[in-house]
């Protein structure tokens, strides 16, 4: 096994540990687990960054140098990276560890799928002609930052729905640790805004790329169409905030539906015929 994939498969376990620590903190109600969770997430992120850079370096040593953003394995790794990166910024900004238990597991799952699924090829492969473009890096980075922000919004949506189950003092620490619903609503909104802007940038960079590769900035390829569907769902969500009675629970559900659409854009589309089939 090559070093970078070994490092990256270890990162999977670090994120798993981090997710468990965040969860322990919520279940036991003991702050002791909090710093442990945050620091392990940060350690995982640093190790993962090193792993990604090493992979980049190794591809150049193989003579087929390119940014490690070119196949399913590399995109899953980068997806996990953006989730943890964005999450740690949020944790630092809002000075609260309460949403970690609902976000870090997504990063763990993405890493685990990349590292341990037999259907995911971990080898460094050269770029086929269609991928040899300067737009590859900006397109993938903007898309995945968008996806990561939507992942956080989805985690917040679940938290909002769970918080609704709380019944006064009789509820355990888990539900009491969840932030107030107004805060969750506000955070969901902000995450969706960030995701929406990045998704828009991702669609724009993708269109520019398609214009130079396929001869048309928009050709209703299933992946393009699904990114538009995702965009429309979140656009609907951002508008419905201004409608009476649409704040709160319905927004939480919308953030989960939106994330389902993101997942389909990412994975499901591979089962439909189209131009993005190498991803």
């Amino acid at each position, binding site marked *: 096994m090559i070093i970078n994939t070994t490092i990256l498969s270890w990162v999977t376990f670090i994120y798993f540990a981090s997710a468990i620590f965040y969860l322990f903190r919520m279940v036991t109600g003991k702050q002791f687990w909090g710093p442990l969770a945050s620091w392990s997430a940060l350690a995982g992120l640093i190790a993962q960054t090193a792993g990604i850079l090493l992979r980049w370096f190794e591809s150049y040593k193989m003579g087929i140098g390119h940014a490690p953003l070119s196949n399913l394995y590399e995109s899953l790794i980068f997806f996990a990276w953006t989730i943890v990166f964005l999450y740690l910024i949020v944790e630092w900004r809002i000075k609260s560890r309460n949403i970690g238990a609902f976000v870090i597991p997504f990063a763990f799952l993405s890493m685990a799928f990349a590292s341990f699924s037999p259907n995911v090829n971990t080898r460094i492969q050269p770029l086929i002609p*269609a991928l040899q473009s300067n737009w590859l890096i900006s397109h993938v980075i903007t898309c995945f930052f968008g996806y990561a922000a939507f992942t956080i919004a989805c985690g917040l949506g679940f938290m909002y729905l769970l918080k609704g189950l709380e019944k006064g003092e009789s509820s355990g620490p888990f539900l009491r640790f969840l932030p107030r619903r107004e805060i969750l609503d506000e955070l969901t909104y902000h995450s969706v805004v960030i995701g929406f802007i990045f998704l828009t940038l991702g669609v724009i960079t993708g269109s520019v790329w398609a214009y130079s590769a396929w001869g048309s900035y928009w050709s209703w390829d299933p992946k393009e169409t699904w990114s538009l569907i995702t965009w429309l769902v979140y656009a609907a969500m951002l508008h419905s905030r201004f409608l009476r009675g649409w704040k709160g629970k319905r927004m939480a559900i919308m953030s989960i539906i939106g994330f389902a659409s993101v997942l389909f854009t990412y994975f499901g589309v591979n089962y439909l015929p189209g131009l993005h089939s190498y991803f």
Partner: protein
Amino acid sequence: MKKIVLSFLSSLKLTVALLIIIAALSILGTVIPQQYGPGESLTHMSPGLVKTFRSLQLLDLYHSVWFIILMCLLSLNLIACSLKRFPTSWKLFTATPSLDRTKPFEDLSPDNILMIEGERSGITSRVEHLLMKRYKRFRRRDTDTTTTFYGEKGAYSHFGVYIVHASILIIIAGAIIGSLWGFEGFVNLAEGESTDTVYVGRQKSLKELDYTVRCDKFSITYYANGMPKEYRSDLSFLENNAVIFQGPLLVNHPVTIKRIKFYQASYGTIPGGRVHITITRGNDKGTTLTVDLKDSFYLKENGAKVTIQRIEENFMSMGPAVLLSIHSSEANMQLWVFKDIEKMKQAIPNLLQKVPKFNPSLFKPYFFKLNTIAHTYYTGLQVSYDPGVSIVATGAFFIVFGFFLAFFSSHKRLWVRVDEQEGKTRIMVSAQSNKDPVGLEREREYLLRHFKKGSEVII
């Protein structure tokens, strides 16, 4: 009636409903195979279903009447909403509130009020100095006993939403212009072939170009692991038999000739072709020949005539092969010559005993070897002209710009009043914002902290 239509068109509920319906219809378009889509698998569906879908225009959904109606409605909705709300935003942008108003200072919470020991005029000028630095739109009003300041910034943030919506209309307009006056064409060109016409659109109608395109050569290079590295067409563009441009066309690197763009879209091989074979006699060096399909050559020692009967890229899954038929005064035979005969012999040890026709030295004393099958490639060119692209790009630029105004800027308005109370100087701060309460709070705290600086605070 007019009123009802207008209020329907300008309602936010309609926006949300349209966005969701367009999303749902788009999903349908990815589930039902599209007639002109990459799948082209209509044959998997029953003819009855195809007929129903076709009559409902679901087989070319993104160009169907339904889709166009919805996009028109969305555009009208965008325009109506903007027209309805813009006057309010404009008023907020241009408003110059009267500084005599006391309303902003009513019901102020105590932490918005500072009581400071010191002379009022000195404190007032310090407050003014700080505010002038931070607020471009700034005004002052004095009476005998009070000084009131008004400052605002970020008033343009009211326009963010209009910029975003206008950008979407611009993008739609660009797309319409492209589909009306642009074209998407396609042409396959064999090496050495040239054309001045391409197939355009769904109906594959012919379109004549102002010049001729010639494919001089098509080539593929591979990585060591067999994955394709480069598809390359060497093209010449000619006008009145004079070359106006010559150069390679690569994937991701289109060539533009007179506003029309050429893209490397696909390639293929033309059936037939020619082969390179080597004939060895005993221990001699051997001769290598290039022979076309159905052509013959003669072996000089015995005058046998050898004809290339068939050329197979992958005969019986054993790789490239040619069928030779040999006629001489002594023998009449047919034999298959493989490129990978050594590998085959290793895989199946008694192959040549079992199938004598595969024996490369069947016609003694000669040994035939197939070196390569030469391909004649054709290149598939996409030929496009889209006058709407720069318009769509403009829209895309402004939509991002609009997002930043709409989501990350806010109109902050600030009233500060300085007066005297019980022998002390009182500063009252009232701050308002159309969004971003957190940023507003930070601004308020900053100002209060700096008003305090260097003076003795009483409360």
